[in-house]
């Protein structure tokens, strides 16, 4: 995270005159400038957060799709030349990574939007926000399989996101 409160010495440094040898240099309080406040306000917006998270999720999905597609066995079809096989494999890899990209982008978008909205409404920052957002994401993604699948998806994704959050929190 960017360190916005850089301690720069403002004001004249006090010279140590004979009797004040233990005088410490007290920095004056630096109120945030209006640009810093506006920058923070931009990042606090739920839509900006959701879109950023969606884009990052899409990138991640693309990478993962390409990587997993490259691990697949190449199909050996005798009716096509090597160049045609290459083109076909490339198209299939691209299709799969595009699907994966869409899935991950939607997942990131929904999760980030849900977490942002819940946290703003509760005005608290703890893991309950992550659990609720995970439940919403998992439930909405597996809602096509019926209510039971939605419940299982909700519980599973909520557990997964809480674990990931706890894992990342331990290293800060």
């Amino acid at each position, binding site marked *: *995270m960017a*360190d*916005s*409160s850089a301690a720069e010495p403002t004001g004249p440094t006090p010279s140590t005159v004979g009797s004040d040898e233990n005088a410490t240099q007290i920095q004056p309080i630096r109120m945030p400038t209006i640009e810093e406040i506006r920058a*923070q306000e931009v990042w*606090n917006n739920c839509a900006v957060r959701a879109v950023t998270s969606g884009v990052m999720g899409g990138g991640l999905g693309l990478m993962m799709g390409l990587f997993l597609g490259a691990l697949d066995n190449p199909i050996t079809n005798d009716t096509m030349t090597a160049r045609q096989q290459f083109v076909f494999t490339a198209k299939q890899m691209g299709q799969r990574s595009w699907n994966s990209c869409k899935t991950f982008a939607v997942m990131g978008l929904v999760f980030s939007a849900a977490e*942002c909205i819940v*946290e*703003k409404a*509760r*005005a*608290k*920052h703890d893991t309950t*926000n992550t659990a609720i957002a995970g439940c919403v994401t998992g439930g909405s993604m597996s809602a096509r399989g019926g209510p039971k699948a939605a419940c299982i998806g909700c519980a599973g994704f909520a557990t997964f996101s809480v674990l990931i959050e706890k894992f990342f*929190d331990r290293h*800060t």
Partner: protein
Amino acid sequence: MASPSPYPPGVTKEQAISMAQMEMEYRVELFNKLAQTCFHKCVDKKYKEAELNMGENSCIDRCVSKYWQVNGMVGQLLSAGKPPM
């Protein structure tokens, strides 16, 4: 008088200065109390990061708004001269 007095009638310059000083002290006290109250109420003491996160931001917004409303309401009630219930 050559120039109109800038102070309201019946108020000397010293009285105006002391009133302004009291007002200034009152405002400083209000700011300090407000910041301290909302900080203690909204910010978790386990400082995990240096930036305010979103929950704390919205908590502080609400806290300041409520404090200001309460302050205005109490000031009005006191200045209206109503006897305490």
